[in-house]
Every structure is written in structure tokens, then in C-alpha cells.
């Protein structure tokens, strides 16, 4: 009897001891960010998210490590990030590059001329441009079908028919850009008011009638809808905006297969393909990564 009690107590002690095991060992530190991974940045709107995923997945498929930094900011910020060495590569629009980064207000007459001029500029700063896409995501001004009918709007210049001047929903940089308020005044003598809002919200503002027009991109998925009308630009205010990956030249030299991985991808990016992908994310609410993967697979690029 006594022996049994002792056994029970000893058992109890053992259980108590077992219950209070010491703290676990230090958890493993996260994998160190690969030193030679390409830091790929994107600007802050849907098309850029999709492009970032497409290029990143294509590069990874070729065994080139990529660190994707999505949603950084406008071209100015991304360009600064490139300059201070925080990024190695980002997809840029040839026209934006030329007008906003290079500060060239002259509109080259063709997509190729725009690309060449931009490439010339970037090469002087230690960057290079890879092959550009077939699609051009030009800036544009869109109005609702109803507004167009009401005021008989067909070109950008027709906007001055709106009493009291047109209000335009646009990202804040629209105010200071040539391809914005500045160009509207100088090319079309248009007195317009900008209602600044983050990219993507301008369609909502347009639908709600808070603005008369909206600064949009030609490849916006929303434009699949017949509800909107894009105003023609007879005075070439909005330049060619084909996408070209901007890459730090040293990185390009260091990474032999980079152009070979990226160029075939760019070649498949048509306006139709891009607009459909944008629609899938913006309207259907799909993930950019999934949409990008589907595109690459469909085109046989993975």
C-alpha cells in the first residue's frame, strides 16, 4: 500500500516535471534576401501589378531569382528608388519616361521613335531598355456615353463645351505633368479642374457624376465596357506609352539570360491581352499573380 502511494506520488512529480519543459530553441531566421536577386519594382496600379508578376514569374522560370516589390509609387518615386539603388528593374511606359523623367516635352512621331529617344536618355544614366510591348497604354480622357451625347463630345478639345469648365478625375501628378493639366492648357487651351484621387477610383467618380471626365489608361479593363467613350487626341497631347522594362545596365551585364527571358514575354503583350487581364483583376477581382500565370501558360512562356 505504502509502496503504491509512493509510486503514485513519484508519477505525479514526473508529470509535473514533464509539463514544464523549457522554452523552445530560437526559431530559424528567415532566409537571407538573396544578394544577387533582381529587385523588380512596379508602380502603383493594376496593370503594373500584373506586369510585375508576369516578368517576375518569367524570370524565375529561367532560374533568375527575383525579389518583387509591388505598388511602390509613381514613376518619379520609382525612378528615385532606381537612382538610390533600391531597385534594379521596373516596367515603364516609353512616353512617361521621356516626358516625366527625361523632361522632354517634344512628342516623337512614332512608338519606335519614342522608345529610341527614351533608351538614349536612360543609357546616359546607367540604365537600359529591353524590347517594348506591342500594346501602348497611352493616357487618355474618358467620358460616359451619356455625357458625350449630352455635350456632343468627340475630341479632347470638345471638353470646353461643358459649362464652367470640365472637372477631371485624375491622380495627383496629373496636375503637374505635361501629359496632364499642363498639356491640356498648352495644346488645347482647355481650362479644366482636376479632382485628385488614387488611380482606379476615377471610373467610380465618373459613374457617380462627380466629375465630367477622367484621366484613364488605354488598356484599362473598365474600357471593355461600352458605357465609356475615349475622347480622340488630334493634337497628340498623349504620347506613345508602350511598356519597356528599365534595367540597371550593370545588372543586365551580370545576368546573361535576362533579356532572353523577358523579350519574348513583352512581344506577346498586346492591347487586347493587357486590357483583358486588367479587367480580370479590376472587375472580376482575381489575383494579379494568378492572372499573370494564366497568361504565361497560355502563351507557352512558362
Amino acid at each position, binding site marked *: 500500500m*505504502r*509502496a503504491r*502511494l*509512493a509510486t503514485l*506520488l*513519484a508519477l*505525479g*512529480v514526473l508529470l*509535473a*516535471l514533464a*509539463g*514544464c519543459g*523549457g*522554452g*523552445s530553441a*530560437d*526559431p530559424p531566421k*528567415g532566409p537571407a534576401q538573396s544578394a544577387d536577386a533582381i529587385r523588380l*519594382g512596379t508602380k*502603383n496600379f493594376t496593370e503594373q501589378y500584373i506586369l510585375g508578376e508576369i516578368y517576375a514569374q518569367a524570370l524565375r522560370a529561367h532560374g533568375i531569382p527575383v525579389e518583387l*516589390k509591388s*505598388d*511602390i*509609387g*509613381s514613376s*518619379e*518615386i*520609382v*525612378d*528615385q*528608388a532606381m*537612382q*538610390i539603388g*533600391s*531597385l534594379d528593374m521596373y516596367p515603364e511606359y516609353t512616353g512617361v519616361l521621356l516626358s516625366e523623367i527625361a523632361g522632354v516635352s517634344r512628342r516623337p512621331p512614332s512608338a519606335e521613335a519614342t522608345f529610341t529617344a527614351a533608351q538614349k536618355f536612360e543609357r546616359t544614366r546607367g540604365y537600359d531598355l529591353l524590347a517594348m510591348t506591342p500594346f501602348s497604354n497611352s493616357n487618355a480622357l474618358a467620358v460616359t456615353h451619356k455625357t458625350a451625347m449630352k455635350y456632343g463630345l468627340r475630341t479632347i478639345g470638345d471638353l470646353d463645351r461643358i459649362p464652367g469648365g470640365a472637372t477631371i478625375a485624375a*491622380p*495627383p*501628378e496629373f*496636375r*503637374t505633368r505635361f501629359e496632364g493639366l499642363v498639356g491640356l492648357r498648352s495644346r488645347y487651351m482647355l481650362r479644366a479642374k482636376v479632382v*485628385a*484621387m*488614387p488611380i482606379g477610383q476615377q471610373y467610380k467618380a465618373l459613374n457617380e457624376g462627380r466629375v465630367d471626365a477622367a484621366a484613364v489608361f488605354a488598356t484599362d479593363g473598365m474600357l471593355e465596357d461600352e458605357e465609356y467613350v475615349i475622347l480622340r487626341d488630334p493634337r497628340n497631347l498623349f504620347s506613345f506609352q508602350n511598356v519597356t522594362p528599365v534595367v540597371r545596365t550593370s545588372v543586365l551585364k551580370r545576368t546573361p539570360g535576362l533579356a532572353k527571358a523577358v523579350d519574348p514575354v513583352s512581344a506577346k503583350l498586346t492591347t487586347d491581352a493587357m486590357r483583358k487581364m486588367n479587367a480580370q483583376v479590376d472587375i472580376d477581382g482575381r489575383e494579379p499573380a494568378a492572372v499573370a500565370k494564366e497568361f504565361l501558360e497560355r502563351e507557352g512562356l512558362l
Partner: protein
Amino acid sequence: MRSIFRRSLTIRTLLVGGVLAALLGAVFAVLVVAVREQQAAGRLALRSQQAIGAGSALETSLVNLENGVRGYVASGRERLLEPFRTARRMYPAQAERLSRLVADEPRQQAAVRQITTGINDYVALWALPLVGLADERREVAQSVLATGTGRERLDTLRSELATLFARERSVAAERERRADRRSDTAVVLGLIGMGLVALVALAMWLALRRSILRPVERVALATRAVADGDLTVHVPADREDEIGTLARSFNDMTDALNRSHQELERSNHDLEQYAQMASHDLQAPLATIDLYLRLIERRLPDASQEELVQLLAGVGGSTDRMRSLVRDLLHLARVGRGEPRRETLDTRAVLDRALENLAGPIEERGADVSAGPLPIVSGDPGQLSLLFQNLLGNAIKFSDHDAPHVSVTASIEGDEAQFAVRDNGIGIDPQHAERIFQPFQRLHGEDRYEGTGIGLAICQRIVSHHGGRIWAESTVGAGSTFRFTLPLAGESPSPPAPPTTTHDEAETSHAAAA
């Protein structure tokens, strides 16, 4: 195991002591664990506090980063960038410290990693580019700042930090609760253990009293009784342990005491009987001598020479009888004393010596004594000679034949020799076959067969003194055979058998003989 436990009091005591020690050890261990548990909880709670402190410092740096950038972009004044520069210098160490402090919580550590990456990105991909942009085109930077995502990123990071703090607090609280619960359990276990220790100690004391002190007390009481003269006292001896051994030894001791006491009493009684019978047998010839002496005194004046000679011969006869009686008593007394001599003897030679001493009676009766092959035995030559002499003497004496015939034969039975002395005499009634070996036992009147009645008693004592047995086989009128055994030479003698006669038998025999 079970039997060892039952057999050894020492092992039982050790076992109980061991259990007691183990219990005390267990209680101590439980308390030690409780104390350590509390200490550990205190340390962990302190660590959680430190982690929250480090996180707050990191948050302050984060706010300084944003404020510095905002101030600089808005005003372009270099001075306002100072908090940004300081915070940028300090935050990696702060993040590192936070990571160390939450090292034992994988989820928290992952959160710290995520926050650190977030701050790195905020600095490298937002704040620094914005500062660069402000240096080149301040109004562009300002417009970016106005609607840019800097504030959102900051808020995201701050809310991640807040989640981290909340989790850290709940982790600390949970640790403290757990430590409290454990230490409560430990205190209860400790109290139970103490209770058990007390119970076991009490049980041990009771068991000790029951299994050691009580039995020893009983033995002490019994010893007192023995000292007071009660030799029949026994103590219970059914246990198998040391106490059982003590009780058995005690019982053996009282038994041995009791036996030797009875033996002493019996031999005392025998001696009394012996003295009584001896004096009785000595009185008869003394009375005869006294009678003759009175006759001589009365008849002396006118007694004839012939008559006097006849009377004196009567005195002489009684004197001879007294002498032989005294001699036999002396033999009997001597035989019983001390160890017999052990010599290797040819019984043939011993027999021859006896026959020499019996030459007179043999001649007188015309007896015929024959002997078969006889063995070599171990014994006292004088005593064995006397043995043969008495047996042969009896065989010749108790015979009505003109020519008595006696044969002596021997056979080997195991490690002893068995002798047979056979006669063709008057025989013995079998009902007396035992009695005849007691002193002073005569079956016949002295007027018919003279003798002291001690001869066979001497024989019996000699044989038993040598470790053998003697008995008689007989048929009345057809002769008797006396058989006895002796150890063969070279055999170690077995101890003398105790006398087979009892006090009561001796008394009745004596009465019959009288």
C-alpha cells in the same frame, strides 16, 4: 522478493526508510519545480515587457521617419530631415533587439521579420526616393506626398506593431497564468506529499512497534518466567524474520533447559533408588553375619570346634557376598564414568580373557563354550572382557543341565558387529526380557542362583557406553540368547544412547524383585 521481504526485518525497515526518503525527495522536487516555474514566468513576463518597450522604440523611430520625410518635403529645410536620419540609423538595432526578445515565439518572430521588411521597404522604396525627388523637384514630391501611400504604409506597420504588442501581452499573461496554475498544483502536491510523509512515518512507527518491540517484550517476559523457574514457557515463533529466529532460539533454549532439568531429576531419582536398593541388598548379608556372630557369642562356652568352624564359614559366606556386591557396584559406577577407552580389539582375545576368569565355574559345571569367528571392534578391553565374562557367567549359572552349552557368534550389520551369546539354560520369561537389565533385578531367589543382580545392568551400561544396544531373546526352558552390538574398529563411535529405562519402570521392577 516477497520471501526476502518476509524473512528480513532489516530489509523491511530499509524499504520503509527508502520510501520515506523518496517521498521527502519528491516533495522537495515538486517545491523546487514550483519555485523555478515562478522564476521562469517572472523572467518571461519581464522579457515580454522588454519586447513591448523595444517595439515602442521602433514605433517611435517609424513615426520619426515619416515626420522627417514630410517635414523636409514640405519645407525643404535640411534641419527637419534630422529626425529621419537619426531614426534611419537607429531602427535596425531596435528591430534586432525586438527580434531577440520574442525569439521563443515563432509567430511573434515572423511578425517582427515582416515589420522589419516593411520598414526596410518604406525607407528604401518610399522615404529615400521621396527625399531624392524633393531635392530635384520639390513640387512633384509634394504632390506625390499629398496623395501617396506613405501614410498608409506607416499605418499598416503601426497596426502590425500594435497586433504584435497585444499578442506579446497575451503571451505574457498566459505565461503568468500558467505559472500560477502550476505553482498552485505544486503547492497542493507538496502538501499531499507532506501528509503522505507523516502517514508513512506513523505507519512505520506502528509497524515497528508491532513487529519488533512487542515480540521483544514477549521474549523478555518469557525470559523473566524462565528465570523464575518456569521451564515450560514458549513464545510464538511463526515469523520468518530475525524476530522469528530469536523466538525459535528462545524456545529451543527453554526446551533444552527443560530436558536437562528432567534428566537431572530422573538421574537423581535413580541414584536415590540405587542407594536404597544397594543398602537393602547389603543389609541381608550384614543381618546374616550379625546372626552368626550372636550364635557364636551364645555358643562360645560350650561349642565344639566343628560347630564354630561351621558358624564362621557362615560369616565368611556372607562376607564374600558383600564383597562381590560391593565389587559389582564399583564396576557399575566406573562403567558409567567418562569416555570409554577406544582400542582396536580382537574380540577373540577378549573372549579368551573372560574364559580364563571363568575357568573355575566352567570346570565346576563341566560347561562347553564354543565360539565362531569374531570381528575386530573398537572399545575398552577391560570393560568388554567384563561384558563377556558376565554374559558367559550368567549362561553357565542359569542352567539346570549337567553340561551347559554356550556359543558365542558374531555377524557384521552395517558399521557395527552384532554378537550373540546363546545358552541352553532355563530361559527367561519374555515379559521380563527388559527388566533384567536394571540393577538389583533378580528373577530367582538367591538361594537358588546366587548373584548380585547387577551383572546385566553392568553389561547394559558397558554396551550403551560403547554406543551399542543389548537385548535378550528367550523361551522359558529352552535357553536364552543375549544379543548386543559394538562399533567395528575404525568406525567413529556414535554417542552413547540415553538410558532407555524410566523412573517408573525401575520402581515396579524393584518391587517385583523384592
